[in-house]
């Protein structure tokens, strides 16, 4: 606990998410001062004069340097280590600093926007390495990108205006924002853990607790993944499918289990085998005659469903 109201949960990775200027970096710096023995990677990667290889080993024992070298090679820096630091690009700097930090011996890892300077195409592999390196250790990772929350976090803390306004398991926080401020910051998103069971090229099919979800993402069959279904992309239809769901590939029949107004909209929870939240207008509620226990079809376009390696 600290001034911002952040709970440091040991043994898991917590992602701190929030808009720019929310105080995420300040929180991390506070944790550095508070805990002391931490592996900390500041937001701005900085390399000192000398070779990239020399930078990689700074502050590490020989054994830890070996591990950092392994990470560096995995991050595609193997050929660069004999080069002077000033030749490195922004992304290379970020990856080198990350490789060094991940090799540190401390039990607590504090990473400030570790993927911000990394190319989009390289992020999934690096995120997987971070997850692997932090397994069983305590991680706090700051980001302002939702995709990274899902890829990296076990827990999620939402920060707004210098304080943590909600924290808990990722899927819980993303699907059930406790305040309008949180909902505005991250939206309401259904998050499911599942396994890829089908690859149709542009789309993949994921099985999550027996429910099939079709979406897009760079994943392979058999992979453990997380599936994101933003609640505002869910369309609710009559049980007979009218009005037609158009091009929506995902169609699940289910029963409304809860309804609650959020601002001017209505948050509807449908049990399709797993709970699915939909944000709809009061008009739709009237047209469909929705109420608790109503039977409905929930439809979502596959392009709205994101699948992230987990």
């Amino acid at each position, binding site marked *: 606990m600290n001034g911002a109201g952040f709970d440091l949960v040991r043994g898991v990775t917590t992602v701190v998410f929030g808009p720019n200027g929310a105080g995420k970096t300040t929180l991390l710096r506070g944790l550095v001062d508070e805990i002391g023995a931490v592996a900390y990677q*500041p937001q701005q*990667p*900085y390399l*000192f004069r000398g070779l990239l290889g020399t930078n990689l080993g*700074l*502050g590490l024992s020989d054994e830890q340097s070996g591990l950092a070298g392994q990470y560096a090679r995995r991050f595609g820096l193997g050929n660069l280590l004999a080069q002077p630091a000033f030749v490195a690009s922004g992304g290379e700097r970020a990856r080198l600093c990350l490789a060094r930090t991940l090799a540190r011996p401390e039990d607590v890892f504090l990473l400030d926007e570790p993927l911000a300077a990394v190319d989009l195409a390289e992020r999934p592999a690096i995120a997987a390495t971070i997850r692997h390196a932090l397994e069983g250790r305590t991680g706090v990772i700051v980001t302002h990108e939702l995709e990274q929350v899902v890829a990296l976090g076990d827990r999620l803390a939402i920060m707004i205006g210098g304080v943590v306004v909600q924290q808990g398991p990722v899927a819980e926080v993303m699907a059930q924002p406790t305040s309008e401020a949180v909902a505005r910051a991250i939206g309401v998103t259904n998050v499911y853990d599942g396994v890829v069971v089908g690859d149709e090229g542009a789309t993949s099919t994921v099985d999550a607790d027996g429910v099939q979800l079709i979406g897009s993402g760079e994943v392979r069959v058999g992979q453990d993944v997380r599936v994101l279904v933003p609640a505002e992309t869910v369309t609710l239809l009559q049980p007979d499918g009218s009005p037609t769901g158009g091009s929506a590939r995902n169609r699940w029949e289910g029963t409304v289990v809860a309804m609650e107004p959020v601002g001017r909209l209505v948050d509807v929870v449908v049990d399709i085998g797993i709970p699915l939240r939909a944000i709809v207008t009061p008009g739709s509620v009237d047209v469909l005659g929705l109420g608790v226990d109503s039977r409905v079809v929930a439809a979502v376009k596959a392009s709205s469903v994101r699948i992230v390696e987990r």
Partner: protein
Amino acid sequence: MAPVGLILDAIADAFASLSDPELIEVVALTLVVSGVASVASLTIGVPMGTALGLGRFRGRSALRVAVDVGMGLPPVLVGLALLLLLWRSGPLGGLRLTFTPTAMMIAQFLLAVPIVVGLTATAIESLPAAAVEQLGALRLSLVDRARLALLEVWPGVVGAAVAAFGRVVSEVGAVLIVGGNIAGETRVLTTLIVQESRQAQFGPALGAGLVLLVISLVVNVSLSRTRGRL
């Protein structure tokens, strides 16, 4: 025409005086005194400047002000204070150091130290915030942290060395007071210039001045060349 003639004569005499064995002796003593003072001030001043630049301790800002004031100390005042200390009946009179090259080295060391400390601290303080944060995150020992920071601001440290040597080799007040300008014993280039000028020996004075200029140039250029090396 006459005024120009004076200058032309002085220049001709200046070149003639360069082969004077007495001048060579004076140049040698100048290099030894200012060289030792500079090296000693760097040895003490660079670690102090690093500590001042990196450290966050009580009294730091007061110390910083003291160093800044020290950078502009009048050489004659330093010479006078040192002379009082070293005077036969003074607190350090037993050392018998008045009018010796050692006293001149001490005087120049005292003038150079604040410059080295101040410029090193300034160089360290100019490290980007990201470098300072990364430096802390590496969890290095104090010595390793200081070494890495110094290496990072190497051109600034070279600048401190250049400034320190430039200050002491061209300084006249302090060495004149504590050294006494004794021919063959404590006469250096600057005091030689004073001596010769007083006696209207403009040629030898100008010759000594030329040598001083060349020394400054050589030291400056050779130190500056190391800036890009690391």
